[in-house]
């Protein structure tokens, strides 16, 4: 756990410096098109951007330590409140995506390994190449056109919080989740197939089969259980990649989540929000990886920390 502190500190310094080195002036953006240079200078002063970099960093670092991510230049709100406002949508989308991806990809990967070289295996490999190749926004437009516009089954955009009912919540997330999940289905299915395939060649599988165990039990209880560690690792990495994926998906489906917030903040050079969101994502990534590491103990009791 303590190792996460230097990781986050390095992220904080890098984000802070990179933003200041990137061209673009938040004050000029806030002032609007008709503002003059004098007005922009006054806004810059009001935001504290006229102070030396080291002073700006010192103030920000001090606030972070006390749990305050600062106030957004652009939205005029506390960054923690902004993240809180957007968290539900992104969390819902990410959870549904992972659930959908895992529940689809793992069985597909196991089946492909079981029927190695057969038509199902080849079809799955073909699908996974397509899943990797097709850009998220292209898939999104195709799904919207077919499912929403032609068939009229699901809405084309928007998000409903779960407090407005489970079905409205779910129907707004089905298409975005599928869109985002395709690449993870491809990734997890391939890794599952490879891991299970390797396990199926082991002696203990032959022994299990020789004992007369049903094939389903051999596959799930023996092969899959022993192939779990690479699969769980890939799922953990996938959650990290998901953070990038939500940015595009939220834009196309008009979901007001953290991805959309990041885009808005970057376009507005809203330094406190960008810094806050990236730090938050870093924490999530570190925690997920920690959980993945801890889960190894569950899947393989020989592992000790």
């Amino acid at each position, binding site marked *: 756990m303590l190792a996460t502190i230097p990781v986050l500190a390095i992220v904080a310094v890098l984000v802070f410096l990179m933003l200041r080195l990137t*061209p673009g002036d938040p004050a000029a953006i806030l002032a*609007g*098109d008709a503002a*003059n240079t004098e007005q922009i200078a006054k806004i810059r002063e009001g935001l504290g951007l006229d102070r030396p970099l080291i002073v700006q960093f010192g103030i920000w670092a001090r606030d972070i330590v006390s749990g305050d991510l600062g106030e957004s230049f652009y939205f005029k709100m506390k960054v923690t409140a902004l993240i809180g406002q957007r968290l539900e949508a992104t969390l819902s989308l990410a959870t549904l995506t992972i659930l959908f991806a895992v529940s689809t990809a793992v069985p597909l990967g196991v089946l492909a390994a079981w029927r190695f070289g057969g038509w199902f295996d080849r079809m799955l490999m073909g699908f996974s190449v397509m899943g990797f190749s097709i850009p998220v926004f292209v898939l999104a437009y195709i799904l919207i056109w077919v499912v929403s516009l032609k068939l009229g089954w699901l809405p084309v*955009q928007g998000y409903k919080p779960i407090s407005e009912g489970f*079905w409205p*919540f779910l129907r707004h997330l089905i298409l975005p989740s599928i869109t985002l999940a395709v690449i993870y289905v491809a990734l997890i299915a391939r890794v599952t197939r490879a891991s299970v395939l390797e396990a199926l060649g082991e002696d203990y599988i032959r022994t299990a089969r020789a004992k007369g165990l049903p094939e389903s039990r051999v596959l799930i209880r023996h092969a899959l259980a022993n192939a779990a560690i690479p699969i769980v690792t890939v799922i953990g990495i996938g959650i990290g990649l998901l953070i990038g994926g939500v940015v595009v998906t939220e834009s196309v489906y*008009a979901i*007001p989540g953290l991805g959309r917030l990041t885009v808005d903040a970057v376009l507005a050079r809203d330094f406190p929000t960008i810094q806050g969101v990236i730090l938050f994502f870093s924490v999530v990534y570190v925690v997920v990886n920690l959980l993945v590491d801890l889960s190894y103990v569950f899947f393989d009791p020989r592992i000790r920390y």
Partner: protein
Amino acid sequence: MKARRIAAAFSLAALASLLGPNAIAQAQSADRVLRVVPHSNLAILDPIWTTAYMSRNHGYMIYDTLFGTDEKAQVKPQMVEEWSANADKRLWTFKLRKGLEFHDGKPVTSEDVVASIARWGKRDAMGSALMTFVDRMDTPAPDTFRIFLREPCGFLLEALGKPSSNVLFIMPKRMADTDAFKQIEEHIGSGPYVFKRDEFKPGDKSVYLKNTKYVPRKEPASGSTGGKNVYVDRVEWNLALRDAQAQVNALQKGEVDILEALAFDHYESVKKDTTLQIPATAPAGLQYMARFNHLHKPFDNAKVRQAVLAAFSQQPFLQAQVGVKELYRVCPSMFTCGTPYGSPFGSEIQSKSNMKKAQELVKASGYDGTPIVIMKPTDLASIQKLPDVAAQLLRQAGFKVDLQAMDWQTLVGRRAKKDAPEKGGWHMFLTAWQAHDIWNPIANAALDARGEQSGWFGWGKDDKLVELRNQFMREVDDAKKKKLADAIQARAFEVGTHVPLGEYVQPVAARKNISGFFVSNGNLYWNLKKN
């Protein structure tokens, strides 16, 4: 049977819980909710603090104005009932109409008005110019205020009723007393809608409820004047839906009612859709403009700027950027064509020119081969093709060009820099202005030729132009103002303050069941009915 009934009752209860507590009620009241997709995101809620159009449009929803400007560019009273000026036009007396009330239930008084004018006068360009004429203001009665001028001013009413950023919105005194360089914390107006602060989520939605206590004027809605009648209970701005294709999909499916800025690429398909309409809400449109940096060579030389004027025929810019013939027009005026000061007077250097003449002018100007740094915004679809056309025409004329791609916000930050182009500055950027922001010589920022004092990026300097502009500010006779506007334009073409690149209309798209559209800036949401 009994068991089946119980099962059916449970099923219905389960269905209701799935649909959600608000879903049925929302479906019933959907025809009283106007769902709008604005042209951009709303983040800044103080329309005096910034000149951003989204903040201005938010202001129109919740605040009222003393005067407005109708579709023929005539100033008409709004909160003001009657007004008069004394014989020497130095004392103006205004009386507010009865029944004006802020959303917190308090009456609008002349003290609120004076405080609002004072704050606006510190931020708005036209307001600041007006304040140089104002000696003092007072409030002899709660419904009456007076403006004492040092000398007659030719644009007092135009300034008080200006329709675009910064609009003089009237706020309660306690809000208007906020430092003009700090944002207001409250959002209480006396306009036709009440802002639902608790439902506001920047990047998601902004919600406005009908102000049931608002007393509209009797005149029909026109521009920012006339009766602001509200026929819906609630207006929702969808701030999350910003992908052009997704916007059209949502409109076609009936998930939203109005798109404020239909992408040109979708114009033909929306036009053919029988469930949709493209109402003519803002025929005055917008003007494209190329702006020089007058501080650095070669554009510190008027002859070089004239060569560019000669090279920049408007047609190629309009064709490349808009593409749809019925949406653009060539307009050799620095003011908007079709408005009182719009005319081709003095525009020959651009309107009657050609590339051969431009090439001759470049040679005669003494241009030394300095590469022209043009800033090209790659992420702003509405103007991103203009710099490519500019670069090509400049090359044809004999200039060297350094076309630098960047996002719009980088451009916005960089254009404020006065450094030399080779040290991170620039030579030229291209942009678009709404008609209302450029249709007179005071509002048009590019015509402020006070050099570095003028403030607007490019910092053009010409004493004669400054003098003509000052005369315009003092002139009270309309015919003489028109002549002065012509003279200002002719001088601006002569010295090459900037290059007008033609005008276009930004189409608005709506479902067919929305009626009551009127001519304005295209972003006003009263008078609309949802059938």
